[in-house]
């Protein structure tokens, strides 16, 4: 009975999303020209790493019952720091990347510290950080795009057995994230805090460093996403990442993570990113009108979670 119960669990968890993916691929494969070309998939592989990395951080934050609305702005700020250090200040590359990652870590840690020190809702703290980081980005870049030239191109051009480095990094982070979440003590505590923080605290565990850690990690990942994103567009754009927080949250929620905390999966989030990426690529390729795109994207977001509802019911009935 134990085996029986765990196998379908695993399968139903992801097979719902896999089904959505297959449906999308079928629709676009038949309606968009050249959709099933290696170029399409190479393109998707080169485009999703940054949002995937953001989604991993967001998953962990949502699991503890938090939220991080600042990831888009923080990513822009980190990119700005990277671009500015490279181009204007002539900082050597490893140092510049270090500064970029550190910047993300610090922004995230500040979010976390504000949350625990004043017991504030993460929503409002990170909303504040969204504005502050964007302002700081404008300050650093003087509102101008910074052309990083070819310095960072090696990142997008390195590849392993044909798979571009950023995609490899993203996959590694997803795998690592899932492992940490489901097997490590840190991960278990995240789930526990998201479910019943008071109970965890009463068990004698100090939840505060864990919470700060998660926000810092989320910020750090935004820094990493910034490196990849800046490399991809060979420039640091001060307006990049506007609205990415909602996109990341949508992907994570489609992937089955609860906004109330306590339940979630990093692999699920990756599926969520894939679904959104394929939807948007497909709509672009069939040349849908903007209003059609909006309506379909909105409906698809809701439909994906509705599907999750029916999948849950189905798998519950089976038990």
């Amino acid at each position, binding site marked *: 009975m134990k085996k029986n119960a765990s196998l379908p669990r695993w399968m139903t968890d992801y097979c719902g999303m896999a089904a959505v993916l297959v449906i999308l691929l079928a629709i676009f494969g038949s309606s968009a020209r050249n959709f099933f070309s290696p170029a399409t998939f190479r393109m998707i592989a080169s485009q999703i790493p940054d949002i995937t990395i953001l989604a991993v951080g967001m998953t962990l934050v949502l699991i503890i019952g938090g939220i991080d609305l600042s990831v888009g702005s923080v990513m822009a700020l980190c990119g700005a720091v990277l671009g500015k250090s490279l181009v204007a200040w002539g900082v050597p590359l490893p140092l510049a990347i270090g500064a970029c990652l550190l910047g993300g870590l610090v922004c995230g840690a500040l979010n976390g510290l504000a949350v625990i020190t004043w017991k504030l809702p993460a929503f409002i703290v990170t909303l504040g950080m969204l504005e502050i980081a964007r302002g700081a980005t404008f300050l650093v*870049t003087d509102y101008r795009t910074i052309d990083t030239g070819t310095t960072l191109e090696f990142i997008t051009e390195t590849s392993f057995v044909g798979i571009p480095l950023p995609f490899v990094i993203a996959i590694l982070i997803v795998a690592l994230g899932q492992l940490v979440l489901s097997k490590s003590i840190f991960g278990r505590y995240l789930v526990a805090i998201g479910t019943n923080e008071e109970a965890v605290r009463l068990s004698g565990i100090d939840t505060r460093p864990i919470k700060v850690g998660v926000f810092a990690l989320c910020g750090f990942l935004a820094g990493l996403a910034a490196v990849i994103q800046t490399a991809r567009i060979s*420039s640091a754009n001060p307006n990049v990442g506007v609205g990415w927080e909602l996109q990341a949250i949508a992907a994570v929620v489609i992937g089955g993570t609860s906004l109330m905390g306590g339940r979630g999966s990093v692999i699920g989030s990756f599926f969520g990113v894939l679904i959104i990426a394929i939807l948007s690529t497909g709509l672009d390729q069939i040349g849908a009108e*903007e209003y059609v795109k909006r309506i379909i994207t909105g409906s698809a977001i809701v439909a994906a979670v509705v599907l999750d509802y029916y999948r849950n019911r189905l798998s519950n009935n089976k038990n």
Partner: protein
Amino acid sequence: KKADTGKPRVALVMKSLANEFFKTMEDGAKAHHKKNSDKYELSTVGIKDELDVAQQIKLVESMIAQQVDAIVIAPADSMALVAVCKKALDAGITVVNIDNKFDAKTLTSRNVQIPFVGPDNRKGAQLAGDYLAKKLAQGDKVAIIEGAPNSFNGIQRKLGFEDAMNSAGIKIVSSQTGYWETDRANKVASANIIAEPELKAILCANDSMAIGALAAVKSAGKTDDILIVGFDNIAAVQRALKDGDILCTVDQHADQLAVFGIDYALEMLGKSGTPQDQETAVDLITAETIKRP
């Protein structure tokens, strides 16, 4: 590498599809394509707002993936799109730049040549500014409402306004962004009007913001004291122009902008050699020019 039909395939990559100006541009292109459907195939794509550079890069990549013959692009960022356009060129695709000019330095540093077909926004803004200057006296005070920060056209228009004001000796007391939006501009304009009671005019980097500024002027009861200048000549300002609520705007023939680019791209497909930039017309629109049939 022609498509099955043998016609060249042109991709129009827009900065935004959710904006009146770009919509007009797109409609113009579509109308042109309808008339010339035997000559080429057209697909239009765009990002949802002018901010999402990464998304636009995706679009260009996806056009490269679809192996189109030419890309006519209104880049959301004058630097960030250069690299991907170079990729398109390397893939043998003809690229024409419209609306928002690529940064010259970036182009040279990457050793690419992409022709720009379009109006000179700075010149257009200067036209409007000069017209306004004639209605004002030296030493009068005006405010500018800029487009979104980092927007190339926004900066050009601001510079054009400044050129005109400076040469007429008119004082710019405030220059803040309205993010191209009506409501934001409404709030900035209202604040300007209060902070500077002697304000004589508000120069807006597009007409949507001019509408917001006009509402602010009206609610402050200063319709007779403050003149408003816009840009783009959209449908929604026609009445205000006729009534003199908005002094003037600038028409850069949005419906033709993409068409110029497409024509140029089609022309280039047959040829080789170093393409040249091509400037298109900008016209000042005032109550008088409207009344003229």
